[in-house]
């Protein structure tokens, strides 16, 4: 089967998030950049499903500047077969991403597109669903386990209140939740091989997509800070505070 996986370059989840001095965005200079953790899970799932379903190809796509090549190479080092970078610099909203991905999907014709359920920078959690709709495909978001069999994907999803199982005809979109798998570490030979794997570049123009900004970011601010709390000496002091100061019990 053929799998397409999307990877986004994001700030490291362990890095401290700071706004730039002019508040025009989050500081990225000197900050480690990684593959969005959910996308890494998506890459892992594609690799496992390729093995389970008797081979095929895993193609990784990123949208961004040449910097995003590093994230494509990480996925290639995990074992993906080839990469595509859609070159774009500057603001891009979820609609723009979906329209670019739609063209890549139409070109590549994968059986399944694996994506992360959300990017840990903008936390929008829209992309898989948008792409599914523009393609007219079924979707299984927040996937906890995936079985590809008989021309369909049977997916257990993490939903409010429990686990939901849905079936989607192929091709379909599946977005990875945290517990879908534990991504492998790239091996040294994997990293060496990744350097030689094919990586094509495309542009929005070449894909025939005219980008327009529909979600315009007007500014960023830091959230209100909580006032510092206090440590209490023992259980009796805690209960006293909860009862008489916070009036919470």
């Amino acid at each position: 089967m053929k799998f397409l996986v999307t990877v986004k370059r994001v700030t490291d989840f362990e890095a401290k998030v700071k706004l730039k001095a002019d508040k025009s965005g989050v500081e990225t200079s000197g900050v480690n950049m990684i593959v969005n953790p959910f996308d890494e899970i998506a890459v892992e799932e594609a690799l496992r499903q390729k093995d389970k379903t008797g081979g095929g190809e895993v193609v990784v796509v990123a949208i961004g500047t040449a910097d995003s090549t590093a994230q494509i190479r990480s996925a290639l080092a995990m074992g993906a077969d080839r990469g595509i970078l859609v070159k774009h610099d500057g603001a891009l909203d979820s609609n723009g991403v979906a329209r670019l991905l739609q063209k890549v999907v139409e070109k590549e014709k994968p059986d399944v597109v694996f994506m992360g359920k959300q990017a840990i920078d903008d936390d929008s959690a829209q992309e898989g669903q948008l792409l599914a709709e523009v393609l007219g495909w079924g979707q299984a978001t927040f996937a906890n386990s995936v079985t590809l069999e008989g021309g369909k994907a049977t997916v257990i999803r993490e939903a409010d209140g429990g686990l939901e199982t849905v079936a989607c005809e192929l091709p379909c979109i599946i977005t990875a939740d945290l517990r879908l798998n534990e991504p492998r570490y790239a091996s040294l030979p994997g990293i060496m091989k990744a350097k030689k794997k094919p990586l094509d570049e495309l542009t929005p123009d070449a894909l025939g997509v005219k980008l327009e900004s529909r979600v315009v970011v007007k500014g960023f601010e830091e959230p209100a800070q909580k006032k510092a709390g206090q440590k209490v000496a023992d259980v009796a002091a805690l209960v006293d505070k909860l009862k008489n100061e916070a009036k919470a019990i």
Partner: protein
Amino acid sequence: MATHLIVVEHQSGKLNKATLSAFAAAAKVGGDMHALVLGQGVGDIAKAVAPYAKKVHVGEHAGLKDRLAQPYAKCIADVAGSLGATHVWAAASSAGKDVLPRVAARLDAAMASDICAVIDEKTFKRPMWAGNVIGTVELATAKKVITVRPTEFSAPAAGAPGEIGAVSVDPGASKMSFVKFDAVVSDRPALADARVIVAAGRGVKGPEGIKGVLEPLADALGAAIGASRAVCDAGWAPNDWQIGQTGKVVAPELYFAVGLSGAIQHVAGMKGSKCIVAINKDPEAPIFQVADYGLVGDLFKVVPELTEAIKKAKG
């Protein structure tokens, strides 16, 4: 003037109260309020939301028995289109997140997810980077789709019940089908509704820690139990209990973080709680930075003592 369509969420014949936050957010924009209830046999749900809408549209169809994103999105977009809705709203629950982006794609509308404030009819604030940054976004399309963070908008006051009417819906051809739902059964309050939450971190060391130490505390307080990702990943608690950036966002009156370090991804889901208590044996644990009251100690010793003291204090 704005025309709002609020997508009403329900589960097992009950209204999901998170939907009321979407009514509250829409009310901040002002305009006509319409609600849409989709499913089968959903008359009671329509009645439950009638006090918040001018009109409740009920779309019943055999193809809508189970909530699947593709047919639901089509029906929501169709109704929004025929109403001339300017804004389509839902709670940022797992169902809202699943369905609303598809509605946005169908309506060719820009979308803002999980908003925490309404500035005007096209401008909204939303948490990003695990809540470390608040972004102000403007939706530049005529139609707008928005999901609302339930903890940031309290339910609006009920008014005179609006009119309830049927609307014809056609789910169309779908590439998806429902197989089953395995509900987490619990006698405790749901995390979203709980006044008090006791949250377990990796420090509880296993399911026995939750059962033997945290459950008695939760019982004494009538609390819901939540967990960190580490606890859910380990299989000590259902995934549905995960609180955080990528789990549930909660804001109870009182939150106990027990044996939980306070990673930003966890804090993102609970820092709106009114009063936060942290119990951790490590005095340097980051959770103490967000806690109103911190108690340094071994949870296996401290929590049982606390449970007894609370029982006494409550008399």
